């Protein structure tokens, strides 16, 4: 009941940011960088345990932008120069230059490492095939459908690796789904390729898009859980879900991942209680809107503490402990 979790990324400690720069200019080896990434993962796992989260993430310490991270490790991709996504945030946009294939597992090693550090479940984190297509410059495949389905095949391999390794939760990040409502069917088809025959609870994370044009279609996405941003838009999206019984699990974003301001416990409790008017508590998870990598570590920790305290107080008040 009201399990707490995170959407994905954590802020990178300064030693890791410096190490990533040093690695880019070949001043340190991949092995040295990898050791520091694992150190950072140990720290965020320990932090989440201390705060009291139920389902943990590894914090994506080995990743910058998630699409670029996967593109670097797949054949058929190269990376462009930096492109702005918002404010002063940039990413190296993947360029599709040939047939896509996966030389070796990408997400598995860090998932296994993170899970080895804790008895609590750690989510396996994957880029969604539709978002990977949408974030890429396509210079090879004949159309968006061909590219999306080709990506789906390699992300499905990733998902099966995680599933076989025992991941209880596998999250597929698909923030691009609201961008083109007419392609919701394509996104669903691609996600279906990824999630077919998995034992894990499958999650689709969507954020910062207009959900109205894709509702109720998103309810039919072939996953067990939708992880949605609500705090950023003052819970305006909640009204959408009042119309019909909600059958899937939902992770409700109650922390604004892109604001320096720390939410109050009262505010977060109000939001959770609003969500519980619509979603059944046994199917509701509580998390931040999105990854926390744009916050400072102090902000991320403070926000998560508020979130966990708000959930505990509600559980106490409801007698759900």
């Amino acid at each position, binding site marked *: 009941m009201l399990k707490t979790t995170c959407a994905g990324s954590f802020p990178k400690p300064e030693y890791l940011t410096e190490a990533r720069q040093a690695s880019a200019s070949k001043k340190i080896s991949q092995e040295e960088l990898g050791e520091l990434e694992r150190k950072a993962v140990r720290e965020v796992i320990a932090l989440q345990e201390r705060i009291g989260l139920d389902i943990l993430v590894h914090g994506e310490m080995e990743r910058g932008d998630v699409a670029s991270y996967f593109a670097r490790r797949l054949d058929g991709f190269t990376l462009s120069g*930096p492109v*702005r996504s918002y404010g*002063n945030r940039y990413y190296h946009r993947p360029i599709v230059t040939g047939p896509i294939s996966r030389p070796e597992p990408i997400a598995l090693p860090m998932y296994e490492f993170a899970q080895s550090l804790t008895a609590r479940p750690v989510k396996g984190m994957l880029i969604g095939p539709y978002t990977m297509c949408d974030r890429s410059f396509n210079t090879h495949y004949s159309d968006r459908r061909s590219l999306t389905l080709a990506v789906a095949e390699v992300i499905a391999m990733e998902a099966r690796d995680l599933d076989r390794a025992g991941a209880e939760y596998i999250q597929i990040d698909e923030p691009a789904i609201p*961008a083109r409502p007419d392609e919701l069917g394509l996104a669903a088809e691609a996600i279906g390729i990824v999630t077919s025959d998995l034992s894990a609870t499958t999650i689709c994370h969507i954020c910062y898009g207009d959900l109205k044009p894709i509702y109720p279609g998103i309810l039919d996405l072939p996953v067990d859980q939708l992880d949605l941003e609500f705090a950023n838009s003052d819970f305006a999206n909640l009204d959408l879900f009042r119309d019909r019984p909600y059958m899937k699990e939902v992770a409700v974003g109650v922390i604004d991942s892109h604001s320096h301001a720390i939410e109050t416990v009262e505010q977060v409790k109000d939001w959770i209680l609003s969500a519980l008017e619509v979603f059944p508590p046994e199917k509701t998870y509580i998390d931040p809107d999105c990854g926390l990598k744009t916050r400072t570590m102090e902000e991320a920790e403070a926000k998560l503490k508020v979130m966990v305290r708000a959930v505990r107080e509600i559980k106490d008040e409801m007698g759900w402990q």
Partner: protein
Amino acid sequence: MITTVVGNYPKIPLAQKGINLRQAMSEHEKGKIDDDRLEDVYRKTILRTIEDQQTAGVDIITDGQIRWTDLTSPMTRSLQNVLPGGLRRFFDNNSYYRRPQITGLISRHRDLAASEYRFAADNGDGPVKAVLCGPITFCHLSDNYYYRSFDKLAEAIAGILAEEASALIGEGCRHIQLDEPALPLYPRKMALASTLYGRIFEGIKEEFGIFIYFSSIKPIAESLFGLPVKFIGLDLVSHPDDIKLLRRFDPDKKLVAGLFDGRNIMLENEKTIRARLDEIGTMVPFEQTLLSPSCGLECLPHKYAVAKLQRMGEVARKVSTVNSR
């Protein structure tokens, strides 16, 4: 053939050496550099943007909207009771904007773009186009918590845009563009749009118009070409079939033909662009047509934006040579 651009331009180059606005903004946020140093980097970045365009032979340039974080940010920084809200995806792109929150009566306490225009005009050799978010698109992108209706908010923002247009003319600006990517989403607001544009540009004799990108113009094709503007810019890449709708184009207006894909790195070949210009030429007089990218170039990494501009310049020069024979 005259060439122009739509508006925004990559703020940082591929090389991390030299002027780096991204780094400067990050250091400024952390208090490592002061306002003057950041301002210096902004100015140098704008100068580089101007140089890129002029080197490529673009005839009517912009300042690249280097100081903007998104299309509505001039409004959120310069208007009373327009506050930046939550993040939202900008149409069907991989970029995001802060959704303006309208919390009270809107008023203009500083200019939106006039001082930016002045800087670019003082530092460029040719005409500089000022670009603003159009009223319909502004309403589409905002959360209105104050005005009674979409139309009332649109009228209020049109009043602000009229003040800004007047300020721009006062600064010597001769080209003003309203970006209206949302206009095709509101076919029932075309009469309103017509009234608002008439008000914004009332008494202005200079070149003023709108640019529509991302969306197909099919839903508004009946009334689009009758709008009281002097030029209409169209994204003819995202919806190539829209070119056929130019049969109805008003020959007294100018067409800004967005034929270079501002959202994909693949470089257009001259033959394809010339074929499309030939097709346009059967519907719009050659001398009434300007060539441009399909949208702002900020969706591209810097080196590809430069390549697009250079290719556009080359094609325009060749077409002009052929047509002058």
